[in-house]
């Protein structure tokens, strides 16, 4: 048995290393027709931002933070998407590689839709300085880069009647506060285990305004209060900019914990009444009889003394 396992593991190890060395030697060639592929729509800033989310969820675990060269040390190495290893690829090359994967690089054909794959590419491209959109006109993602000011601030206006919040975002450009255009603002409600997005992130218009309407049927606490959080989504660019406030815009909700009811599964204080009656009833009847017998015995004894 032991010998067998030992044998097997050697064999498996051998086969695996063979497979790896084979695939490592094998260059990642992309068929010519795939290589020339371009995104059917121009790269837009929204696309780039979607791409960022997708990257963080699906790729970051191996490729690390873009530009920081902190990818996971695998062989062959995943590489930093900001590096030349990536940038020298054509859009079609990237698309093909992400779609089909190779070795430790998973294939995303089934995980990500085509537009999602393009979105990731548009995001990766925003780190490539010399990238020029392919013939046929991808707008460069870099150009769509959002507001470049610093020290962004949120100014929040509430419409208590329509449950609408208007947020104005301003940032410091050359010492002057100006409306921040193209910044993504997220509207959330704080829940027990995280933030509930009220809507998709809203990108500010040229006046720096992002609006969101809150539904009127969201559960709050027993008084209908909940905590709203408004924040900039791209906190890695702008730092943490957040606004929070407790509003009575929700519906009153009283959580009814089933453990607080009498039930078979309840704690000892919450045993069903019928069960308590049955249990203690039976116990009591048994001990009433036993007590009766004890009294009889006492009487019996006293009779003997006469």
């Amino acid at each position, binding site marked *: 048995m032991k010998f067998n396992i030992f044998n097997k593991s050697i064999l498996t190890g051998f086969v695996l290393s063979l497979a790896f060395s084979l695939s490592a030697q094998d260059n990642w060639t992309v068929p010519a027709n795939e290589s020339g592929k371009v995104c059917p729509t121009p790269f837009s800033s929204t696309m780039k931002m979607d791409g960022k989310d997708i990257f963080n969820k699906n790729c970051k675990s191996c490729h690390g933070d873009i530009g920081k060269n902190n990818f996971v040390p695998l062989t062959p190495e995943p590489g930093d998407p900001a590096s030349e290893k990536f940038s020298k690829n054509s859009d079609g090359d990237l698309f093909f590689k992400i779609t089909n994967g190779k070795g430790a690089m998973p294939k995303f054909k089934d995980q990500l839709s085509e537009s999602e794959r393009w979105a990731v590419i548009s995001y990766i491209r925003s780190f490539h300085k010399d990238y020029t959109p392919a013939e046929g006109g991808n707008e460069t993602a870099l150009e769509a880069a959002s507001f470049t000011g610093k020290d962004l601030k949120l100014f929040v206006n509430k419409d208590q009647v329509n449950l609408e919040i208007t947020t104005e975002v301003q940032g410091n450009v050359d010492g002057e506060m100006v409306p921040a255009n193209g910044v993504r603002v997220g509207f959330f409600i704080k829940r027990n285990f995280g933030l509930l997005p009220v809507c998709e992130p809203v990108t500010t218009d040229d006046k720096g305004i992002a609006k969101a309407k809150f539904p009127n049927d969201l559960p709050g606490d027993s008084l209908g209060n909940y905590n709203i959080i408004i924040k900039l989504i791209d906190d890695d660019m702008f730092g943490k900019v957040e606004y929070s406030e407790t509003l009575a815009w929700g519906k009153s909700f009283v959580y009814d914990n089933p453990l607080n009811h009498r039930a*078979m*599964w*309840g*704690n*000892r204080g919450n*045993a*069903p009444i019928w*069960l*308590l009656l049955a*249990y203690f009833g*039976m*116990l009591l009847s*048994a*001990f009433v*009889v*036993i007590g*009766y*017998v004890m009294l*009889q*015995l006492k*009487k*019996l*004894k*006293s*009779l*003997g*003394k006469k």
Partner: protein
Amino acid sequence: MSSEKLTKEEAKTRFEKMVSDITRPMTHHYGLNVWIFVLLMILSLFGYAYFIQVRDGLGVTGMHDYAAWGMYIANFVFFVAAALVGMLISAVLGLSGQKWITPVSRIAEMIAVAFAMIAGLVIVFDMGRPDRVLNVFIHGRVQSPIVWDLTVVTTYTIISTLLLVLPLIPDMAIIKKRLTNAPKWQMMIWNMLSLGWIGTPEQYKILHRSIRALLILIVPVALMIHTVTSWLFAMTPRAGWNSTVFGPYFVTGAFVTGVAGVIVAMYFFRQNYKLKDYLTDFHFDKMGKLFVLVAMVYMYFNVNEFFVPGYKMMEGEDHHILTLFVGSWAGLFWFAQIFGNIIPMFLPIFKFFRKPMPLMIISVLAVLGAWIKRYIIVIPGQLHPFLPVQNVPDKFHFYVPTGPEIAITLGTIGMAITIITILAKIFPVIPIWEVAEEKGIDKETINE
């Protein structure tokens, strides 16, 4: 049985002979030293094993993540089953007016008390450290069958003890007047338990009334003790336990175990205590017939327990049934079924097998079968998890009791037998006054 009129003189000589017959073993201890030595050996082995278990924890047993209940719980179920016989003999047969059970009833009660007492202890051993028992009181929920079980085992033990003690009262008075050479402590016990019995009609009335009340009370309590024990299992949706007939299945199984146990004890006392005139062939014959009856009822529940799920072969159940009938548990299973049920159901139908010796042999095997049967009920079902699980250590699919576990289990059996031995040494194993009354001896002579 015979109630022809006796003269005063005849009655007196007959009664005195009876008393000396029945009480002789209480003062003459043939082979007792050897017996006590054997019991002490078992108990010290137990003591050592229990010390190891308390010191090192339950890890010294064979129990593990899957088989979290092992030999201890199987043994517990067996003990409860054996304890049930007190109720069957004294209450069911006694209340229905079966006179022949009179000389057997005290043996049955002694067995009941001894096994009920130790049953509770077995649970304590299964908990590992003894102080864990407190947790049942601190955290126990009325919703839990374990709490019901604890309650009903305790109640049953109390009632059984009373049912042993009450019919002893007149006997105590008889004995304390005659065995005056006995050690002081023994005299004290007899004197105390005789409760000043002088045999007035009023005392008789009170005694009969009290015994009757207890006999009626013990029927539901005994049914409950074993039904609740079965519910420890049946309240779980596990293949092999998830059964609606488990209550009656256990109760009827317990009757078989109990009857077999009483027959073995009867045989032992008849031989060693020289009680051939009191535990006669007639009594064995009756017990043999009772054996057939209870085995038949038990068979009926066995058929229900296996045929119904076996017909449907639902996933999970199918595996369980196959491992029992033809799989790795088949050997033990068929031993239990054949010796614990089929043979007791058929052989004692023939007169020859209702003779003391053959019946005793059948009973010994039936007791063994009954113990194994409990083992088979408790363990196999646990070795297969509810969900498919990966990377489980191989040993989780087996359960093998370890040395300390077996020693502790043997020890509990030793304890029960020790209790019976002690009871049978300081109290008469045959109810003198009741048997005397049946032989037509008048109350006056009895209480003189």
